[in-house]
């Protein structure tokens, strides 16, 4: 398996690895995938309550290099976006940016799912808080 330079770069220097406090109402957490399938992604966003803009994003991923790169890239793209803008990130954008081969498209799909799940979690928290 040969990887694109961008995948290798994200794998060697992953951006935004780590965790945000799950209990924080400003933090949304998405956990997608299944260990038995070989891919699990945890993606978190922190939203500035004043501006509605994502001011921090973190990830942890169990998966192949492409899965790690997809989630690393996603956190990079999320920072500075509003929730609406964030939901516009599509898996095909990730495929294109990282030059993922067809067998690795599921990694990008998982990253898109993780973004959606994190935002849904954040929105749920806001509703519950009201």
């Amino acid at each position, binding site marked *: 398996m040969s990887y694109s330079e961008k995948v*290798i770069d994200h794998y060697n220097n992953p951006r935004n690895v780590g965790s945000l406090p799950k209990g924080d109402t400003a933090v949304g957490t998405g956990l997608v995938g299944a260990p*038995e399938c070989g891919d*699990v992604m945890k993606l978190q966003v922190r939203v500035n309550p004043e501006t509605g803009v994502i001011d921090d994003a973190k990830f*942890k991923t169990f998966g*192949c*290099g492409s*899965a*790690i790169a997809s989630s690393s890239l996603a956190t990079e793209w999320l920072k500075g976006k509003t929730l609406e803008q964030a939901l516009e990130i599509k898996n095909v954008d990730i495929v294109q940016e990282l030059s993922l081969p067809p067998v690795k498209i599921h990694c990008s799909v998982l990253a898109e799912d993780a973004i959606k799940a994190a935002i849904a979690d954040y929105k749920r928290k806001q509703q519950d808080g009201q």
Partner: protein
Amino acid sequence: MLRFPIYMDNHATTPVDPRVLELMLPYFTDRFGNAASRNHSYGWQAEEAVDVARKQVAELIGATAKEIVFTSGATESDNLAIKGAARMYREKGNHLITVVTEHKAVIDTCKHLEKEGFDVTYLPVKRDGLVDLDRLRAAITDRTILISIMAANNEVGVLQPIAEIGKMARERGVLFHTDAVQAAGKVPFDVNASSVDMASLSAHKMYGPKGVGALYVRRRNPRVLLTPIIDGGGHERGMRSGTLNVPGIVGFGKAAAICREELATESARVTGLRNRLSDGLRRELDEIYINGSVEHRLPGNLNVSFAYVEGESLLMGINDIAVSSGSACTSATLEPSYVLKALGTSDELAHSSIRFGLGRFNTEEEVDFVVQKVSAVVKRLREMSPLYELAKEHEEVKIRG
């Protein structure tokens, strides 16, 4: 001085031993004759060289030279043994027995025969990878004509109890074929001591060239007959037509002779390296699991799962080490190794597995480098793994609770 990438994938293939290559080279040029040419010295010379090699290969496994049929490799040998015996003895019965952890060359050959109307029993294995002899005994029927069980597994290195299997097959009048590709030359293997009727061998797994293998076919007690799968000039006692690969066969013979001479010292040395690797990894890392029996195992094999780390990402991090993974992230089905699944390894741990295959040319220095490198990458990937984080949180909860 380390040479990169460090090669630890000796179950996939091995480099040709320089002593083997040296002996082969003249058979490409000066001594290029066809071993079947009867009328001139080129042919005689080639035939003589093949005769020497045939004896060398036979001696490695306790056979006689006439019982060796040269083939293009072990996949062909497996096909010839299983299809050849099934078709030859069809009137005696139509039932075959094999094991789920066999190489695809055996499994897919059996599947092909099912389409021809044969019944095949695929026996499960125990948690340690060994076949359950009671289940095997119970599976044999009056219609059973062949048992095919490998001597050593290519993924987990587990050694099957072939002497017991051979004895059982002999008592019931069933032929016994073993794919001995990984075992021959690495551990003692004798076709008479193990009552083996057919055995598949491959040169490139024992420091010989690719593209040449052999099938041992017993000639006495019982005499095994096979229906050929390749028709032609009637070479190899009619069992395998086709001009002999003389340089390859010469190399195969020499490789077998070296393995035979050096088996005791080499297996002790390689076992030492394997244990050094295993001990080193266990010293550096927690939650690593060895797949398959530790006791009944090839000297050079270490198949280990690194919990919470996906195999392909681990391979990417250790790209200066050539090994293989039980994870099949690249396959369309996303199915991990069927061998590990058969051992009852969870899919998660199968995705986390790496197969190290140590061999003749590995050194302690290489092993020490691999221990350090693998440990560092596993630690880094665990820090990135949500599963590791969850497991640690769970542990803390347990401790606090």
